[in-house]
C-alpha cells in the first residue's frame, strides 16, 4: 500500500531527483539491475504465459477457452466478482465513512479488523468458512436440514472472495475521506441538501478516484483469488471451479496449452488493471496538479477586486 501512496505524489517525485544526483556509473548500474530483475522475474514469465497459450495456434487457443468446463469457470469467476465487488464497495464506503467522519469507541478495533484479511492466510480464511458452514461446521446441521448449500457451492466461493477482498475499497477510501473532512458535507447541509444529495453530489465525487482505484484492485483480486476459494470450492469441474482453480486443474492434468490459455486471460486482466490504474493516476494528477502549473494570474489578485468598485 505504501507504494501506491508515494507513487501518487508527483510533485515530490520531481523534487527528489534534484537532491539525489549520483555519478552516471552508479545511476546506470542501479537502473540496469532493476531492469534486469523486472525482465527476468516479471516480463519473461508473462510473455511465456502468452507464448505457451498460443503454442498450438489460435484455433487451439479458442477451443481451450470455449471448452464447456473452462467456459463455466470463466462465467463463475465473473459471477463471483459481480457479486463480491459491489458488496465490498458498499461495505468499504460504510466502513471508511464511519472511520473518517465519526468518533466512536472501538474505532481502532474496526481499523484492525478491516486489515485482518491482509494478514490472515487465504487458506485459513477459507477454512474459517468451512468450520462455520461445512457439514460438520457450526451451522452445518441447520443448513443441511433446510437443504441450503454454502460450502462447495457458489455462496461459499462468494463469501470467501468477499472476505479476502474486503480491505481494498475501505483502505483506499479511508485516507481520502479523512483528508476531505466533514466541512464540505456540512456546507451542503446548510445549503438545503438532504443526506442522499450530499452523498451523491459532494461526498462521492470527492472520493471518486480513490473509489475507482479500490474497485479495480478489489476486482483484480476477486477474479484472481486462489487459496481461500480453493478450500471452499470443492473443485467440482464445470460447477465450482473458478478460473484460477481451472488453471491449476488443467495444468495438473498435463493440458499445458489449455492451462496457459485460461491463465492468459487472467494475465490479461492483470494487464488491463495496471493500464487503467496508470491512466487513472495520470488523470488524477492532471486534475488536481493543475493548480501548481497555473497560478492565479497577477491581474486577478484580490487587491484589484477590492480597489475596483464592485458593489455599485
Amino acid at each position, binding site marked *: 500500500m505504501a507504494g501506491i501512496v508515494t507513487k501518487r505524489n508527483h510533485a515530490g517525485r520531481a523534487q527528489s531527483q534534484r537532491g539525489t544526483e549520483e555519478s552516471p556509473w552508479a545511476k546506470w548500474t542501479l537502473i540496469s539491475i532493476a531492469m534486469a530483475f523486472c525482465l527476468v522475474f516479471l516480463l519473461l514469465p508473462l510473455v511465456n504465459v502468452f507464448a505457451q497459450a498460443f503454442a498450438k495456434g489460435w484455433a487451439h487457443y479458442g477451443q481451450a477457452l470455449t471448452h464447456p468446463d473452462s467456459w463455466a469457470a470463466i462465467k463463475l469467476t465473473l459471477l463471483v466478482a459481480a457479486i463480491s465487488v459491489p458488496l465490498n464497495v458498499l461495505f468499504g464506503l460504510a466502513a471508511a465513512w464511519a472511520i473518517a467522519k465519526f468518533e466512536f469507541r472501538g474505532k481502532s478495533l474496526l481499523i484492525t479488523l478491516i486489515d485482518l484479511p491482509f494478514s490472515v492466510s487465504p487458506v485459513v480464511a477459507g477454512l474459517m468458512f468451512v468450520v462455520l458452514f461445512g457439514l460438520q461446521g457450526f451451522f452445518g446441521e441447520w443448513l443441511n436440514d433446510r437443504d441450503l448449500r454454502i460450502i462447495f457451492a457458489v455462496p461459499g466461493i462468494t463469501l470467501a472472495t468477499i472476505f479476502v477482498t474486503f480491505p481494498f475499497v475501505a483502505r483506499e477510501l479511508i485516507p481520502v475521506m479523512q483528508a476531505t473532512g466533514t466541512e464540505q458535507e*456540512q456546507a451542503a447541509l446548510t445549503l438545503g441538501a438532504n443526506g442522499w444529495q450530499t452523498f451523491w453530489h459532494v461526498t462521492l465525487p470527492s472520493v471518486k478516484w480513490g473509489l475507482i482505484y479500490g474497485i479495480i484492485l478489489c476486482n483484480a483480486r476477486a477474479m484472481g483469488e486462489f487459496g481461500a476459494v480453493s478450500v471452499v470450492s470443492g473443485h467440482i469441474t464445470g460447477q465450482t471451479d473458478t478460473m484460477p482453480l481451472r488453471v491449476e486443474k488443467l495444468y495438473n492434468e498435463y493440458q499445458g496449452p489449455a492451462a496457459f490459455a485460461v491463465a492468459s486471460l487472467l494475465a490479461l486482466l492483470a494487464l488491463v488493471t495496471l493500464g487503467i490504474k496508470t491512466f487513472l493516476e495520470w488523470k488524477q494528477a492532471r486534475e488536481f496538479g493543475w493548480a501548481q502549473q497555473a497560478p492565479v494570474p497577477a491581474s486577478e489578485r484580490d487587491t484589484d*477586486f477590492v480597489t475596483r468598485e464592485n458593489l455599485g
Partner: protein
Amino acid sequence: MSIELKHITKKFGEVTAVNRVSFTVNEGELVGLLGPSGGGKTTVLRMIAGLEMPTEGDVLIRGQRVNDVSVQQRNIGFVFQSYALFKTMNVFHNIAFGLKVKKWRKADILARVMELLELFGLGGLEKRYPHQLSGGQRQRVAIARALAPKPSVLLLDEPFGAVDAKIRQELREWLVTLHHELNVTTIFVTHDQEEAMEVSNRIVIFSRGNLEQIGAPREVYEQPSNEFVARFVGVMNVLETEVRGGVARANELEFPAHGQPDGARLRIGFRPYAVQVSPDLAMYPYRAVLRHTFFLGVLLRLEFELASGLIIRSRMTKEDYAQLGLADDREVSLQIRNFRVLAREGAELPPEQIAVKEAPPTLGEGI
C-alpha cells in the same frame, strides 16, 4: 430575521463549551461574536445554524423555537472558516448548488448565479475550480454560495482568518458595504477585537463559554462590564495598588480611593488615551522617559518608563507626537486622567473615575 438564544448550554462530554448564554440579534443587524479561541463563539454560531444541538436552552428564529428544525430547513447561509468549497465543482456549480437542491428552475438558477458573480466581482471565473482561485476569491465564492438561496440570516465563522493581512482590512469594509446593500441579518465570529469593533453594529463578547457583555462597539469599549472585557477590548494598563490614607499607590502613581481602608489592595486599570503627556516637566506630576515608539500607521504606540521603572503604555496620533516634539529617550511629565478600579473577573465594574482635579482637554483624546 430576529434570532434569540435563551439560556443555551452546550456540553461536549464533561466540557462545557457554552454556559447559559442568552442574547437577541435583531432583524438586519450585523453582530460580531468576539472572544479568545476556545471561548465558545463558534459553537454558538453552529447552534444557530443547527450544526450543533444545544444541551439545554432554546434557539428561536423569528420567535419560533427551532431546536428540532433541521439544518436544511432553517434557511441560513453559513460560511465556514476554511470556506469548505466543493472542490470537485467549479465556481458556477458551487454557487448553484443550493439552488439545485431546492429545485429552482434552470433559467432562474442561471440568472441568480450570474447576478451573484457580478455582485461579487467573480465574472469570468465561473469555470474555475476552487484550487485555481486566490484566497480572497475563494472567500467571495463561499459567501456568494451561502447567499444564493436567499437565506434569512448569514453566519460567518472567522471570515477573514484565512485571508492575507494586507487585504483583510479592505475585505472588512467590503463586508460592511455588502451587509448594507443586502440588509440580511449577519452574525460573524472573530477573535480579533479590532475587526469586531470595526465591522459590527453590536458585539457579543465570550470568554470560556460565558457571555461577558453585549453592546455597541463604543459601549463595550467605554463601559466594559468586567475586567475581562476591559482587557480584551482595547489595550489597558493594569496596576496592583495598595491603599494608604485614602490613596491607592503603585510606585509613585497615586489614585484617589476614598473610603477604602488602609492596606486594601486594588487593581487599577486605565486606557492608553487616559495618559496625558507634556514636554514641560513641570506640567504634570510624574516624570517619565519615552522608551519606545511603535508605528501602527496613523497611530503611534508609546511606552513610557516612570522614574521608578514602571512601564505604562499610551497612544497618540503622529500629529500630536510631532507637536509635542517627542522622541525616544526624551524626558516628559505625565498624568493619568481617569482610571477604573477593576473587580475580580466576572464581577461588575464600577464606573470610570477622574484621577485629576481639573482635566484639561488633552491631545490624542478618544483614541
